[in-house]
């Protein structure tokens, strides 16, 4: 994060213990406005737990999570109104039509002129023809586009994307990334991104944070980290870190 950048996310000394198991161990980092930050690490590194504490789905054992300068536990409603989240592992109700799902979430986020907003997003994400369809009938690629449209309903300042392309074929994943980059530029979005696809992370992230066994092992631009480990790309760095343990 640059010195003159405003911190959108400030995580300080975050610890989460589940009984004796320490899932997140004294993690501190910041994310600046307009930054795209990749949160990386092997399975069980603590990425998901960190994200869930950021979204106030899990209560930290200790430490603080501030978003837009405010503590998430005290200003939950205000903060979550300006964040959105998307993950292929979290489904939108399949028994609702696509426009019904978008309309319900528009209501939950208090979107004004929700019909107009849904139409606008349907055009951007190329889901206009899907609006009258049942959500359960969508393909994985269509569902990912719908999830992203849902995630943009409230014009979030911070977007949390948990492995958004994990179930997409390379062609659709590439289109997704291009679309995301375009939106990020246009709206000056701040993005926290997790993925196991290191090429993807190199392509879209300004900075990456590596977690391993609940601790931050590295925090820097992809180039800095690749250089530090003397590897040819992030994938090799990932393997090196994961196999070190």
């Amino acid at each position: 994060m640059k010195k003159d950048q405003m911190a959108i996310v400030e995580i300080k000394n975050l610890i989460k213990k589940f009984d004796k198991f320490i899932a997140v161990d004294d993690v501190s980092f910041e994310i600046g406005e307009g930054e795209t930050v990749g949160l990386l690490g092997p399975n069980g590194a603590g990425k998901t737990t960190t994200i869930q504490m950021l979204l106030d789905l899990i209560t930290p054992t200790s430490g603080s999570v501030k978003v837009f300068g405010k503590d998430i536990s005290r200003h939950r409603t205000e903060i979550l109104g300006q964040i959105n989240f998307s993950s292929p592992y979290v489904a939108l109700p399949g028994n609702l039509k696509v426009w019904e799902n978008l309309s319900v979430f528009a209501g939950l986020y208090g979107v004004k002129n929700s019909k107009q907003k849904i139409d606008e997003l349907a055009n951007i994400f190329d889901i206009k023809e899907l609006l009258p369809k049942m959500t359960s009938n969508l393909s994985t690629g269509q569902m990912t586009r719908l999830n992203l449209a849902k995630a943009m309903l409230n014009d979030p300042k911070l977007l949390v994307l948990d492995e958004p392309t994990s179930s997409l074929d390379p062609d659709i994943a590439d289109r997704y990334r291009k679309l995301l980059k375009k939106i990020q530029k246009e709206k000056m979005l701040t993005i926290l991104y997790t993925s196991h696809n290191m090429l993807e992370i190199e392509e879209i992230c300004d900075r990456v944070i590596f977690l391993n066994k609940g601790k931050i092992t590295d925090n820097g631009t992809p180039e800095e980290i690749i250089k530090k480990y003397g590897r040819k790309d992030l994938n090799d760095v990932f393997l090196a870190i994961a196999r070190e343990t």
Partner: protein
Amino acid sequence: MKWHRIKALLVRHLYLYQRSVPRLMDVFFWPTMTLLLWGFVSEYLQQSNFSGSVNIVAVLMGAIIFWEILSEGQHSLSVAFLEDIWERNLLNIFVTPLKLSEFLASTALLGVIRVFLVSVVMAIIAIFAYSFNLFSLGFYIIPFAFNLIFFGWILGLIITAVILRFGTSAQVLAFGIMFLVQPFTAVFYPVSILPKYIQYISYALPSTYVFEALRAVVNTGHFLTSYFFISLGLNLIYLALSLWFFYAMFARIKKNGMITKMDS
């Protein structure tokens, strides 16, 4: 609390009712079948003169309509929560600015709508099939009915809290809890029939006072106003306890990280 968030969750459930046969059956078909069954039983008892001077049709018809009001109140709240677990939507809901109080308010409103529809359907069938007009008992029955919705909602809240604590393995309670309550709350018979030690349990339930008051008005024409206030008082106490329990269970699953695993 913000109305737009309460409305959004309510609308989410109402969308489902438009095209879901099982949900429509819950509201229209099963209550109708229950009413028909008990209607024929009461007519048989009346014609066989088993019931003496008691207007058994009025007693049983009134009881079954009131019972459905209680059941629907509980069922709608518990099942509304389960819908989001079954659809793996819980996480999406709780990363929005939605407050727990708004979540509960929307399910309570859904319960009121369901109860209203079930009551209207049953009341109309009772008039045409058995010449029994629920409102011939007087419009005082409305506040009593609200006490039943209230208690049903409290039971739904407790079940939802138990599901939060123990996960979907406890979901059977959402469908079975009323069968545990029914024998103790004296729906079809007076409390005096019950053994003395069970009467203590019976009088601890707000619904018991409603069913006793219903029988009293059929038999004597008098409303037991005091029973309304006892029922309301118990409801308020149980509401406070059940809200405390629900919020405690929610805090617990946030601490254990279970909310993210509930719908996986």
